[in-house]
């Protein structure tokens, strides 16, 4: 590499900045850890194996367990990613292959608009428009006819539920996942598509081959989408129903970690261990999110290097 004297100066001048950015990340993790420490000391593992939110003015009677919100967080994020993957694959193919530029441009524009749309708008829309629609048109019929299946077994009440949150979340994260898919799709060498067509494949068969090649990238991008969905607060807090219970039934209201934090933070300041318990939840969230996005990014870089040889 070419390195003149002034370039070296520049290089070292920017160093403190990089160190500062790294420092913020470390301090952030450290602060969250120390703030949650009292709850670990007090409740130990029960914090992650029990499900309870019982604040009390007497610190001896306080008890908190986050097992249900943790499971619900993972459940809702996984569902939303599972919903958004097929939609994103369709959008990727439509935008790149099927619709010619003139017709595809408005669709591309709209997808980008939806990608940057403030999440609180999705949340408000999800809770006032989508919720009653899903309850009357989807949840009630499913419960009436397929109620014997465990995930449909609970009676839908207000409509604010795991299903509503997952769908709203999927609508909001699909543009992000699609953008990643499109980026990956463009990296696939054209020889594969040419090969498929020269063997007489139809368009659909050629796309199937391309998506097959993209599969590792799809998994990686989904990890990034998962990490984003996991930390999403506004949408979930407005649609998931905010109830401290353990349920895998799609029509039940639950709490995710972010929705619990958003709802309880203000009042938690009044109790001795409530705030530390919320910070413990944040710590779990932070660790899972960082791991998911780390592996997502690493897989993407690995795939990029492999695809070009």
């Amino acid at each position, binding site marked *: 590499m070419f390195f003149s004297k002034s370039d070296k100066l520049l290089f070292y001048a920017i160093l403190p*900045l990089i160190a500062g*950015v790294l420092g913020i990340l470390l*301090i952030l993790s450290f602060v969250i850890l120390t703030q949650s420490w009292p709850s670990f000391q007090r409740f130990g593992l029960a914090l992650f194996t029990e499900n309870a939110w019982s604040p009390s003015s007497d610190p001896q009677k306080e008890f908190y367990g986050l097992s249900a919100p943790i499971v619900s967080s993972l459940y809702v994020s996984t569902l939303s990613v599972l919903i958004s993957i097929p939609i994103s694959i369709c959008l990727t193919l439509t935008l790149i292959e099927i619709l010619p530029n003139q017709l595809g441009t408005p669709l591309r524009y709209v997808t980008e608009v939806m990608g940057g749309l403030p999440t609180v708008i999705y949340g408000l829309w999800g809770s006032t428009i989508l919720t009653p629609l899903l309850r009357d048109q989807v949840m009630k019929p499913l419960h009436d006819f397929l109620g014997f299946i465990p995930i449909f077994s609970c009676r839908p009440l207000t409509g604010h539920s795991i299903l509503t949150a997952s769908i709203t979340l999927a609508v909001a994260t699909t543009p992000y996942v699609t953008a990643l898919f499109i980026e990956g799709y463009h990296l696939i060498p054209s020889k594969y598509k040419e090969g498929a067509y020269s063997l007489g494949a139809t368009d*659909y068969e050629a796309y199937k081959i391309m998506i097959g090649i993209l599969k590792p990238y799809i998994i990686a991008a989904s990890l990034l989408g998962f990490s984003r969905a996991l930390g*999403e607060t506004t949408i979930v807090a407005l649609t998931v129903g905010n109830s401290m219970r353990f349920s895998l039934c799609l029509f039940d209201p639950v709490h995710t970690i972010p929705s619990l934090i958003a709802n309880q933070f203000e009042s938690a300041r009044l109790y001795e261990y409530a705030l530390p318990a919320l910070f413990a939840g944040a710590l779990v969230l932070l660790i899972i999110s960082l791991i998911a996005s780390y592996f997502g990014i690493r897989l993407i870089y690995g795939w990029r290097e492999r695809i070009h040889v």
Partner: protein
Amino acid sequence: MYKSLSSRKIKNRIMLFIIVAVSILYVTPLISIIYTAVERGGATLLEAGLTFLTNLPPTPLSTSVGGIAPALIGSLLASALAILISTPIAFLAAFYVTEFPKHSLSRMCEVVVRSFSGVPSIVVSMFIYSTVVIGMGRQSLLAGSLSLSIVTLPYAYVYFTSAFRSIPESLREAAMSLGMNRVRALIHVYIGVLRGSLVTGLLMSYVRAFGDTAPLLFTMGFLMNSVFAGVLQQSNAIPLMIFVYALSPYEIFHRVAWGATLVLLLIYLTLFTVSRILVRGVKL
């Protein structure tokens, strides 16, 4: 053995149709969102008129919807302050990583800044709460801006890196062959070439900060009784107000929330479209 050609062609047609149909169906939520915002938010705006932007919010017992002035001012200021902090850092980091791509430090920088996008914004909010808010003794516009700046940092970084990568290698070589060092090349060549993308990057980061709720939850406060109290005092933000009012049981707050949603949607769509037009103008 082989399926006949015509059945494969029919399958092809059907599958292509399904793929396009799913893609187009995906857009329906946005149509529904815009329709509802115009219908419900429009009613609120018609009732309050332009004073919706200049009045204080109502109380649960008010008869008129009042306005969202504290939130509007808070959002405008906090987002500006946030990108004032985050975009210079993101810009320098992006410049550094694209200019010295092989260096181990710049690889680390890439990993660290990208990890920031894995930090949930509500966790950032809690972090700023336990440091800045506790330290200052109160929630403030400054704390909200700091929170927003951390959240927008990776976003601006990704944008600037792709802008720097889009500089044609020939321009870079030309600058170097004129004996420029990297700082001079940045000032005299790159910034000129990237003008449009840089403005777009700023604008997109601003839009991002403007629409974000979670980073402000425990940092910004919820100012209702005056329009602006100072940078070191409590403030408010449009997304925050929508969120809090949507969760409240009062009908009048829901009406304000929809009005604020329409305002937010209009601001967002305008800024977004402007930045898109700028991008189109600078394609090399």
